[in-house]
């Protein structure tokens, strides 16, 4: 870890070569994060996506100084962490996994203690409780709160610092649809105030609705990163639905040209990895097969995520070699 500040000023978070391994009870080393290079731009909502066990929470914990990295460097707003975390922590609010407060204390008491610890004015506690809609339940013991209320209290706690960066780790886990929407609107609202929000989540549709940029990781490595629109648009342009006579022969011609092509039960070809749709018409036309339908297929963030993380979830065999992963990234377009 270095103590230098080399990060570009428009990055809220930057990691380079971040690595973390754990020891199991049998003494075996398990890699949690493997050489992660992550950039989170200042402002907006940044989705941090990955299958279970991909290293999202570990990365967040390392950024917050809760877990020690084995190697690599991390910066928050250009300050190396964890070395300079004490000076930067006032600008960072975080909820890691489920909110954790003292169960027997009231929501108000929990926030009072935190506010006093950071020297925040006591009046701010009432304000943030009101802002998250917990003013009526502030005197009730935290253990009596629903999961949604616990999440709201955690958000209120982060707001005590008026942070520039908010980190939410799986904030919608266990919430009902109304709660999910509430959290989503809160995140969007914070981003609209100019704050940076990093949200890790499995709920990709939610992330797509709220995130401006995303990073997708698996097995502790970055698979793709960029603006949501670019990632999705890149995939959309690369995937087309083709209507043609003799679909099997047409698919074979496309495959021989290096395009992934499958034929569905209706005889429609689905081609992906297409650099330019005109290439499809040219290839087929030059073989006497005239296209009567050529439609770009809409791809959402979930399909991008699934394609990138295919076979990289928990319980799957080891990841492919670095070279094959790189070629997949290049084919995707829009990624790093």
């Amino acid at each position, binding site marked *: 870890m270095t103590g230098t500040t080399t990060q570009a000023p428009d990055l809220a978070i930057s990691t380079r070569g971040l690595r973390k391994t754990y020891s199991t009870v049998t003494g075996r080393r398990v890699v949690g994060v493997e050489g992660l290079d992550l950039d989170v731009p200042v402002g907006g909502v940044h989705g941090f996506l990955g299958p279970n066990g991909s290293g999202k929470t570990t990365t967040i914990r390392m950024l917050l*100084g*809760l877990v*020690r990295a084995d190697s690599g460097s991390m910066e928050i707003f250009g300050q190396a962490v964890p070395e300079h975390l*004490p000076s930067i922590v006032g600008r960072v609010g975080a909820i890691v996994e*489920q909110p*954790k407060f003292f169960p027997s204390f009231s929501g108000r*008491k929990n926030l009072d203690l935190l506010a006093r*610890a*950071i020297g925040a004015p006591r009046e701010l506690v009432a304000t943030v409780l009101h802002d998250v809609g917990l003013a009526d339940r502030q005197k009730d013991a935290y253990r009596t709160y629903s999961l949604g209320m616990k999440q709201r209290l*955690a958000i209120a706690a982060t707001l005590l610092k008026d942070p520039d960066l908010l980190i939410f780790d799986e904030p919608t886990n266990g919430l009902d649809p109304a709660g999910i929407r509430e959290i989503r609107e809160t995140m969007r609202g914070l981003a609209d105030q100019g704050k940076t929000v990093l949200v890790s989540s499995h709920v990709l549709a939610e992330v797509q609705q709220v995130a401006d940029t995303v990073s997708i990781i698996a097995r502790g490595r970055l698979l793709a990163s960029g603006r949501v629109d670019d990632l999705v648009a890149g995939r959309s342009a690369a995937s087309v639905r083709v209507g043609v006579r003799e679909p099997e022969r047409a698919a074979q011609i496309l495959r021989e040209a290096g395009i992934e092509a499958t034929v569905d039960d209706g005889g429609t070809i689905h081609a992906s990895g297409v650099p330019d749709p005109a290439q499809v018409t040219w290839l087929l036309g030059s073989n006497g097969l005239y296209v009567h339908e050529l439609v770009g297929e809409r791809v959402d963030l979930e399909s991008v995520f699934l394609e990138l993380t295919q076979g990289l979830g928990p319980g799957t065999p080891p990841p492919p070699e670095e070279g094959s992963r790189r070629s997949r990234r290049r084919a995707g377009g829009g990624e790093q």
Partner: protein
Amino acid sequence: MRLLGVELDRFLSRPAVRWIIVAVLALAASAALLALGPATPMSEAERAQVVADFESYHDQWLADHEELYEDCLAGEAVEREVDPDVDWECEWALQEPQITDWFWETTFAESGHEILRGVTLGVLFGLAVAVVSFVAAEFSTGAIGNWLTFEPRRVRVYLAKLGAAVIGAGVLAGIAYVIAVFATYLPFAAYATTGEVTAVLWEDLAAGGARFALAGALVAVIAVALAFLLRHLAAAIGVAIGWLVIVELTFAAVSTGLQRWTMSNNLRALTEGGTVYHAEVCSLGESGRRVCEWTEFPISALQGGLVLGGVAVVLTVVALLVFRRRDVS
């Protein structure tokens, strides 16, 4: 200081700690029950019974003691044929019984300290549980992770909790001691059996209170370290009981010299202003044979304080190093 204030607030606001404090203060007040018996003067009937019992015993002694003495000497002589260093201390048979030894009446001046000992260790145990619960709950609930996102300087976090525990336990130990002293005094005062309560006695009790508060603070330091290392109340209590049974009782019973360094003896020495332990000392007698006898050894209050303080410092350094490096899940 800000963190220390927050931690003190949290210590005193925690319901489990509050219940333990109530129990500890109730235990201290229960010294009144322990004092009630000794403070109550004997009734005339009891006195008459004691006199009658004593006279019967004394008559028996007058009739038997010379014979007992001779028998003892004879037995000793037989034994000395095998081991010339044997000493049965037969003079005990010649000591005339005294009726004053048969009356159980006592005064606060004579027995106050002794009665206080009946509650002090319980008070310290309660305070240790309160402190471990105060720290360990933060780990078991996961709140420590949230806390560290507000104050990532772990040494400060540790020292704030340590300070709160030391102040809380030290002050509570002092309060509990004062309650116990007055709870002990009240029954004697009610029956006018306080005896000669001098300024020296009160000074002695005050010094005992100061030592007890110090013991409370040292126990809190050790409890905080255990809580940070083990992160669970049950685990800390388990380790403490395991230590007591394996080291303090088993090992120290086998190797009696270890008793000088046991935590329990040194804690007693500190709280009681000194204590003694008995160890078997063996040497070669005049005949060249190995002779062993139980010997009383003193442990001073100063040693008790130094040993407990040393243990507290070592455990604190270890716990601090572990807490600084350990991942918080």
